[in-house]
């Protein structure tokens, strides 16, 4: 019985490990790369090789080209206001609104017991470290979706930050965003408005 050459099988296998890609899709993608030929494959593998130069920012956890990301190392950004988001995509979305002049903190997920995600599985401890009195943070803005898991995560962070440093003002994006909707899909105007109309919690 014919099977693909081992080296193609190996490519299919690696591709199929990616999120949202099933075995059929992986097969199609691998064959596509083969058909495109070596130059295209080299370009892809060079891009993949570049991953080693991309890092987590050691202050905010966002994706960064260096140890400290461009936002955290920008002199003009207000280090006293941290906008907390679920994922790196949300940072990009909020940057597009141009309405946030402070810095960020990326959680990489939301509290979700049914999926076995508890506070310790998120970058919440790092946020609490940043909230200590010596760090001079004035405000923490929770740019977290108004979903069940988003509400629970916001509440958890608000409680924990208040305990760590009661002087910090904690706000959450106004419900200008339709409930249950994703910040990723909100248009810039609505999201910008929500940042301006954030409410203290």
């Amino acid at each position, binding site marked *: 019985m014919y099977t693909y050459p081992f080296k193609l099988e190996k490519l299919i296998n690696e591709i199929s490990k990616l999120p949202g890609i099933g075995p059929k899709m992986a097969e199609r993608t691998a064959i596509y790369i083969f058909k495109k030929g070596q130059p295209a494959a080299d370009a892809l593998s060079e891009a993949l090789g570049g991953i080693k130069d991309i890092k987590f920012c050691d202050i905010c956890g966002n994706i960064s080209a260096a140890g400290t990301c461009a936002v955290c190392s920008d002199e003009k950004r207000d280090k006293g206001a941290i906008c907390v988001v679920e994922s790196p995509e949300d940072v990009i979305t909020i940057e597009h609104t141009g309405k946030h002049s402070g810095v960020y903190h990326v959680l990489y997920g939301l*509290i*979700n*017991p*049914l999926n076995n995600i*508890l*506070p310790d599985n998120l970058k919440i401890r790092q946020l609490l470290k940043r909230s200590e009195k010596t760090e001079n943070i004035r405000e923490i803005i929770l740019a977290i979706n108004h979903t*069940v*898991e988003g*509400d*629970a*995560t916001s*509440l*958890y962070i608000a*409680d924990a930050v208040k305990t760590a440093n009661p002087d910090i003002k904690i706000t959450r994006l106004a419900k200008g965003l339709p*409930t*249950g909707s994703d910040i990723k899909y909100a248009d810039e105007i609505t999201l910008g408005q929500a940042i301006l109309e954030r409410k203290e919690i």
Partner: protein
Amino acid sequence: MYIKKIELSNLRNYSSIELDLVKGINVFHGENGSGKTNIIEGVYWLSIGKSFRASDDKEIVKEGCDSCRVYSEAEVNGLDKMFSLEYSADVRKKVIRINNSRIKKMADVIGEIPVVLFSPEDIQIVKGEPVLRRKYIDQMLCQVSREYFETLSKYLKEVSHRNYLLKGIKEKKVSVSNLGVWNEQIKINGAFLIMKRFEAMQELNSLLASKLTSEKNDVSINYLSKNFMSMKFDDVIYEYENHFKTKIDEEIVRGTTLIGPHRDDIEIFYNGKNAKAFASEGQQRVSAILLKLAEGLFIRERKNSYPVVLLDDFSSELDNPNRGFIGRTLQQFKQIIITTTYPENLKELTPARMFHVEHGKVSLV
């Protein structure tokens, strides 16, 4: 509001039918299995987005077909509107349109064509398990309040997160401190739901007493919540906090959240006595119909628009005086759709239009 026209395509035993309905009572009569309930199911499906008897939308698609569609023209607060709902079985997708524009979320449609349905199984609201009475009250409130609908969905999800944590705590996989945020959310949303239900109960009782009563028949209800003695928001919050503190060990052992709207019940009284325990079969049926009609009047008051009353298999097991009584109370609605196997029984209801149903064909009588 009222429905002027309804079209069913490839739904159950109908290939394609078009019906012109009128204000007042529209009767569909025909033999068993002719397709009467299917018509009511179609109207209900368009209104609520799911069937009341099929657990899977696939079931309502005519055998051998890939998709089905219900279309209707209705007058809503003086405006003529078009509604359509189409389901494709292969991709399991529903497309909803109002005036030909696509609507993304079913939640934006619920309540646009308000309906209230009584089908023979609804006697279980009186006879059956508490879950059916909770469903009765929740469905009613979801039709009139988007906020209730959203809070209920959130609340139920929060309870399942919390229950999962309780099981994890029992197995020593997670710590008790993880419950904190869920307790907070659940008590606030739970108290909101309890308040809204309690308010609705009071309104239903006054509607039952003023508009849905006769010398022989008197139905009233009472919200039953084992742990909440007072129905004030702050008291409910206090009871929740107290419960979370004192009953935590029991909740961990049982692995489930023991109090809240998901455990509450409604007590139904017929002529002052518990209907589940004391009323006869016919009296239980009358009670269930009156509760449904009370739901209809409740929707009318809250939405300022008449719901369409759907009565499936009406008249089965009701005596003459009770049929007359229900017939008179129906006069309070704008449009009623009734199915029956015995049209003779409905003479005193003075139907505005009669249809005869025969194997997926409908003709005006």
